[in-house]
């Protein structure tokens, strides 16, 4: 039915002439665990004095992730490792919590056993992991959080900094971009992760707030899913039940790929916006596919900042309690330079090929 199949062709794509940064919030939307505003990105840079004393310590850092099966984690770890190396220290270990609080608790305990100077970690769950994280400071180890702070932990006694990206801001960007494709009184669908998880809830909040404030005419239909590996099926079934949907948003790249796959299977196209970049959705974006905008994080840069925070904590300097990297917007017209920002390397050749006509703008 609806206008789904005859969405705007790329020549008159409403985003062609738009500068990506014009769709992003002017400041970080998300607030810290204490309601505080984010520090600036530059606050993560080390002073010469700090740098010297950190280098003198040859710091040892442990990393505990929520999963190591995704590129985002790999990039975070790469950033941390590079920077810890640059600080003359070593990452003694990376432990994979496999999305399970019991496994991540084991990771924390195993890490404490090895007595690093600091642990950098993203909690699988901010509530039920709290006692495990409390043991880190008890063992005299510094703790830097990624993305989310375990509930009830005190700054700076129990943790010494938190680095994330502006998830709300990314959600808002995705909303602003998607809205360009939706006619008045149109309908958008959200494929929402139906489990209490801090980061996805933040993105959802940013998206919905933007819609409410800026396009109250649009009807938002939310479909919850719980198993990311079946998100594609969920998307297909949701779109079958709701043929009036004219655009889709989802909270990260895995369900986005599911939506694309589902739509291809049904022979339909819809504009899709999403948070978190990966090569597959970037390629779709670059080649004028269904993905129209990606609000990206900068996991590598975050990793660098986390390493700096850890170094500072170890030498006893203070970090800001909350640092969020602003949204990094991807539109088709800036894929190559945005890619450079996020990955610090040239885009894969397939993406470059898709960009041959110059449509993706220059690389950095």
């Amino acid at each position, binding site marked *: 039915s609806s206008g789904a199949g005859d969405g705007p062709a790329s020549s008159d794509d409403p985003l062609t002439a738009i500068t990506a940064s014009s769709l992003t919030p002017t400041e970080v939307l998300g607030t810290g665990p204490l309601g505080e505003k984010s520090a600036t990105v530059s606050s993560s840079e080390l002073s010469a004095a700090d740098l010297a004393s950190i280098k003198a310590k040859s710091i040892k850092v442990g990393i505990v992730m929520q999963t*190591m*099966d*995704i*590129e985002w*984690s*790999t990039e975070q770890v790469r950033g941390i490792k590079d920077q810890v190396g640059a600080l003359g220290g070593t990452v003694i270990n990376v432990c994979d919590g496999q999305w399970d609080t019991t496994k991540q608790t084991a990771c924390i305990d195993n890490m404490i056993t090895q007595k690093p100077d600091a642990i950098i970690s993203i909690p699988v769950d901010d509530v039920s992991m709290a006692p495990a994280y409390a043991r880190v400071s008890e063992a005299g180890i510094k703790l830097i959080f990624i993305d989310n702070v375990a509930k009830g932990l005190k700054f700076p006694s129990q943790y010494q900094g938190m680095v994330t990206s502006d998830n709300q801001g990314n959600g808002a960007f995705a909303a602003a971009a998607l809205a360009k494709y939706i006619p008045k009184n149109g309908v958008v669908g959200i494929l929402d992760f*139906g489990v209490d998880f801090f980061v996805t809830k933040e993105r959802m909040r940013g998206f919905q707030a933007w819609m409410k404030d800026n396009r109250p005419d649009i009807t938002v239909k939310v*479909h*919850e*899913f*719980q*198993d990311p*590996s*079946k998100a*594609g*099926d*969920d998307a*297909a*079934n*949701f779109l*079958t*039940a709701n043929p009036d949907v004219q655009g889709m948003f989802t909270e990260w790249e*895995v369900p986005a*790929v599911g939506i*694309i*796959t589902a739509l*291809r*299977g*049904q*022979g339909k196209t819809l504009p899709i916006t999403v948070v978190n970049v*990966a*090569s*597959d959705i970037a*390629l*779709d974006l670059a080649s004028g596919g269904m993905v129209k905008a990606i609000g990206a994080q900068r996991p590598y840069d975050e990793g660098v900042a986390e390493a700096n925070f850890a170094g500072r904590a170890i030498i006893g300097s203070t970090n800001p309690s909350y640092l969020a990297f602003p949204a990094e917007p991807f539109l088709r017209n800036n894929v190559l330079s945005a890619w450079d920002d996020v990955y610090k390397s040239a885009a*894969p050749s*397939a*993406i470059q*090929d898709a960009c041959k006509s110059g449509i993706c703008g220059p690389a950095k």
Partner: protein
Amino acid sequence: MSEQYVSTTEKASRGVRQRLAETDQPLFLYGAFLLLIIGFTVANPLFLTAGNLLNILNQTALVTIMAAGVALVIITGEIDLSVGSVLALSGVSAALFMNNFGQNWFLGALVGILVGASVGFINGILTARLLIPSFLVTLGMLSIARGIALIMTGTAPVLVTNATFWSVFAETPFLGIPAPIVWTIVVIIIVWVLLHFSVFGRRIFATGGNLDAAKFSGINTRAVKISVFLISGALAGLAGVIVAARGHAIRPDAAAGIELDVLAAVILGGTSLFGGKGKIYGVILGSLIIGILNNGLVLMGIDPSIQLTIKGALVIIAVAFGRR
């Protein structure tokens, strides 16, 4: 002689009730199946549209393809838990091969399927030759194959840019039927002939029915087991190729946990975990029932937590119903 030894009349007159009691699950599954379809159609008329039915078939394609292979393994009395990881490893291998060696869609698919078959072969050797319980072999392989896929890709998705590959394995509709469904039909026909009409099929049943008796009858039970693992691996490889073609990319963490769905389809279809018993049409029904549940409950707009609960209950009820 007072007894009629083999009498066709007696056979014909065997009560329907007895036949029902004797046959394995699949027959009754038709009932469960029909009830589900009726129920969901009443709940949402969209359910019974051609588009949605193709939808369901498309969604169940992967599980059906892998379940056909896993059913063979289970009928020999073994188990294969590694298919989800093999899918990922095969898909990733196909994609990387194409990206590095000249983008030939056919060779890429071949590599994917061969990688799957090789992993299956190793599973088979470890099970049949070293006599390690297949549960442990394939549980170990589940980690190994996934680990290798993650290492090969550095956890990043691998892009697939060959348009022929896309269309052969995911897109080109053949008589209006999307490619994954066509592949499923091809696989089902091959496995059906193999299992129910070939000598090899007899060997599979005998091996699982009574391993020792099969050996004592001259059946090379090791070769049979190795072959079914190989087939199961190759089909998981094909599934990986389809996933890569569908997504125009494949992630090394693709299809994690799908083994439980595959096993559910196989067992729901009346295949005995103890071996020696099973029917391909049962596997198809099992897989479709799961697919219909997933689709129908979403179409009804039910909250996912409640969906999960209902789905579990319906699986049990479907079987209980068949046991009456």
